[in-house]
């Protein structure tokens, strides 16, 4: 996009940024913004985009083994949505002045992260149910809060994404509910998936508020609107009831309704596992990155051919 040149001084621009943040107005790409705000958003939005894209892998693992044509169509549509979410988010990050090539390079070099949850394997069909219900469920709680984030393009991407997410969660819950009405083996499979995905889902919200010293700026700039623990609590409170309805047990012996706070108390989260997986030692970290790099390279000739075709037709017109 081209822009006519502005004529305001830097100091005025920064007060303008502060004023907009105070007034709950959105910051747009061409608005002046502190460099640290821009960098924070690039890091957060690109990580979010990478998560959507890498998240297609564990689900793609079951596409060819989906138990019916209906479930295969649904899973395909769900995965296609996730690819789309990645694209919305890459575009939002690009408005901050980083190219898509650069974001992908940072992912491949390990400088940009993606959500830890996708470093776990999908062992049975019930895992597809658990991902949709729990992982997308947790993502929805986070993304609904982000609809109020201060950066316009990010907030707009969140609106679009949230509209598409509710089908993701419902299809996952339907898989779990169906399996819980099935044979003893199917019920066992569903409970086993629940046991493996519950804690990593809680970890998706990040460290406890008392252990996340870096969220100060994000709150001040209204990038982040709700704390990790608040969001995690919200997720637990809605999900526990859904588990009970279909007869699943929450794998947390300390989970207990707390009348005073009108929410559940939960047992301690094993953060050593979280740190271990995030530092590269999860069951699938290597596989996820290698797969992404491999197909990125495999697709290179297509991009080059498209580019060559563009140059060719531009000489013909």
């Amino acid at each position, binding site marked *: 996009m081209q*822009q006519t040149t502005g*004529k305001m001084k830097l100091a005025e621009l920064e007060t303008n940024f502060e004023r907009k943040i105070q007034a709950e107005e959105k910051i747009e790409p*061409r*608005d002046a913004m502190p460099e640290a705000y821009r960098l924070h958003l690039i890091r957060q939005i690109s990580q979010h985009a990478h998560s959507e894209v890498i998240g297609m892998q564990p689900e793609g693992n079951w596409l060819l083994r989906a138990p019916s044509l209906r479930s295969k169509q649904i899973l395909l549509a769900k995965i296609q949505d996730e690819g789309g979410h990645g694209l919305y988010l890459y575009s939002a990050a690009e408005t901050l002045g980083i190219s898509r*090539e650069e974001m992908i390079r940072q992912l491949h070099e390990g400088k940009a992260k993606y959500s830890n949850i996708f470093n776990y394997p999908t062992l049975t069909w019930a895992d597809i149910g658990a991902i949709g219900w729990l992982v997308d469920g947790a993502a929805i709680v986070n993304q609904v809060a982000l609809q109020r984030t201060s950066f316009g393009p990010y907030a707009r991407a969140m609106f679009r994404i949230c509209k598409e997410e509710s089908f993701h969660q419902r299809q996952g819950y339907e898989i779990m509910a169906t399996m819980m009405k099935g044979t003893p083996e199917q019920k066992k499979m569903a409970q086993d998936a629940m046991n493996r995905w519950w804690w990593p889902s809680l970890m998706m919200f990040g460290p406890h508020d008392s252990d996340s010293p870096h969220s100060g700026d994000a709150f001040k700039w209204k990038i982040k609107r709700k704390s990790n623990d608040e969001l995690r609590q919200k997720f637990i409170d809605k999900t526990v009831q859904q588990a009970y309805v279909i007869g699943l047990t929450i794998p947390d012996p300390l989970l207990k309704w707390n009348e005073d706070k009108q929410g559940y108390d939960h047992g301690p989260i094993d953060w050593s596992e979280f740190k271990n997986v995030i530092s590269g030692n999860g069951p699938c970290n290597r596989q996820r990155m290698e797969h992404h790099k491999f197909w990125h390279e495999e697709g290179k000739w297509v*991009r080059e051919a498209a*580019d060559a075709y563009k140059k060719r037709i531009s000489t013909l017109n």
Partner: protein
Amino acid sequence: MDTQLDLWEVFVQGKSGGQFMHAGSVHASDKEMALKYARDLYTRRNEGSAIWVVLSNNIVSSAPEDAEMFFDPANDKIYRHPTFYTMPEGALQI
């Protein structure tokens, strides 16, 4: 040098006769590809009846920091709004 192709802006018309609204962007190397990608990305749930795509580089934007000055000419012309006028009592359908 790797390429992620050119950046295009996508405008979608929800129902025929309605306005085209900015939906987002796509990467594509030519206009046909841009249209097809825009369809796949922004109208998977019947959100559109028509799509425009335009190379992002061809869009010119006003500067947000000049907004006050730029839109100033409209500020003191309240007589452009129907509520500015006093209507005689009893006049109907006006």
